[in-house]
């Protein structure tokens, strides 16, 4: 979307014009929802997080500095909202036990071939603790010390959660690979 028309849209939203707000919402829905989906356990939760995020966007739009890019600004709000949600709802939950993992050599190619929705489903099956750390580290690029501060955990816990998240993912990917093979071989 062109700079000026986006700016005009933002101006309309600052004026609390409902029509402008709806257009902005539809425009960034996919981007925002994609962030929330990988942090949440299911679509329902993701929608809640996303709407909470958009609410913050619309009520804080006048603090947005138009010299900065808009998409990352929204993205940060969504990520922060997702983290708040996790901390409010899941932090006290127990971590699940870990199965042993198998070989990981084929995993890369399996993932390459996976559809987004299927990969997303795997991510969502991780426990919230692992999923959140994995998102923050592997997708959003935070360092362990930053994650420790954001989630109020130790750096060690952050590293260990990341490790476990990856292990779990590999496990699931391998299961997925087996399923695909079985399908291919006509079961």
């Amino acid at each position, binding site marked *: 979307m062109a700079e000026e028309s986006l700016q005009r849209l933002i101006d309309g939203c600052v004026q*609390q014009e*409902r029509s402008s*707000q*709806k257009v902005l*919402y*539809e425009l960034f*829905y*996919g*981007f925002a*929802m*994609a962030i929330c*989906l*990988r942090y949440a356990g299911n679509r329902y939760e993701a*929608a809640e997080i*996303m*709407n909470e995020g*958009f*609410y913050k966007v*619309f*009520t*804080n739009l*006048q*603090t*947005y*500095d138009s010299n*900065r890019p808009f998409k990352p600004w929204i993205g940060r709000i969504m990520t*922060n909202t997702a*983290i*708040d949600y996790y*901390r409010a709802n899941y932090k006290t939950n127990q971590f699940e036990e870990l199965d042993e993992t198998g070989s*990981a*050599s084929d*995993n*890369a190619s399996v*993932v*390459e071939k*996976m559809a*987004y*929705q299927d*990969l*997303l489903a795997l*991510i969502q099956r991780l426990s919230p603790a692992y999923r959140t750390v994995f998102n923050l580290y*592997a*997708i959003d690029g935070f*360092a362990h*010390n*930053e994650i420790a*501060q*954001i989630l*109020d955990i130790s750096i060690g816990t952050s590293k260990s959660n990341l490790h476990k998240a*990856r292990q779990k*993912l*590999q496990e699931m990917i391998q299961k997925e690979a087996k399923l695909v093979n079985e399908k291919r071989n006509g079961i």
Partner: protein
Amino acid sequence: MDDMTRKNIDDIIRKKLLEGENYVDYQEADWNALESKLDAQKKVIPWMWIFSAAAVILLVAMFSWIIWKPTNNDTRPVTQNEPSQQTQPITPEPENNRSTESQNPKPVPNTRVLLAESSKKVQPSASNAGTQKEPQISIEEHELGQVLNLAENFNSFSTSELAVYSRRAPDERETQGVKPSISLAKQRNSWNGLAVGIIASTDLNGVGSFQHSSIGGDFGFTVTAQITDRWSISTGAIYAKKPYTIAYDQYRPGSNYQPSVQPDKVHADCRVLDIPVNINYTFLRRKEDSFSIGTGISSYLMLREDYYFRYANSYNQGSNELSIVNRNRHWFGVVNLQASYERQINTGLSIGFGPYLKLPVDDIGYGRVKLRSVGLAVTVNWHVLQ
């Protein structure tokens, strides 16, 4: 699995997940849910508007009352030898006093009482039956009439002055008419000269807009010099507490330091010495009420700036603080706009109130923000030089 493979898979996953926005289906139900939330939020009271609307309404109400209230009849013909004409306001009779009151609803209570007393002092002579008017009274009334004229216009008189004046007249029998003292005649309910005063105010402080503003307060001293009948200049020193909250994006200190975890919001509490230099114009004056507008420049000396950093997730224990003491000075960095209503209480004292706006030209404080203030001030002024 080695690190390379691990990183490789991470990257693949990352890429795929980031493309997700192209695969997400829009659902209208999600918008509907948000819309209800936004509708609920819209009912939040806009304090800023209520605040300024109330101030404006108050000023307009006072304005209208001043303009349209009935005024005293100050062109009463008063002569020495026609006592019969002088039945109007200046008798001690209760009924006439009442009519006096109806003609002069403006409360000048001390004056009226004194006049009544003075009238009583005069010995009634026989000439006009049914009334108590006679030459002596006419003299009295003439003088009193003059005094009443004066009284209407110069309500700044202390009652003792009037009493002395009225009591003097019958003894001295100045039939040639009243000579109000020169100084009294020249005195109006405005004053020339110098006044010192105190000012206290409450205001909203914000950056950018007043949407998320914080309430602060000021207190200080002013010195005002009346240059002409309408124009005055003033200055002073005012201690102000100016709190405000901004998004971290708006906080722009000169340093290049970027924290690894960025705060979400910054809450500032600044103590400022505000030194204004203002020029004021009195555009309406009625008796003891006057309305003025003014503008000028303020200098903000930042005595103390405390910054509190808040993080997006409130559970973050590391909320940082920063204190800057006596560092920043913004000479002539803020533009003032104000309006005020002032009421003369007596010769020496007046009180006033009115709204004001402070708009920065400079970037204020360590955070270099455009800190604006809007508020309502109350003033008390003592006129020390006339």
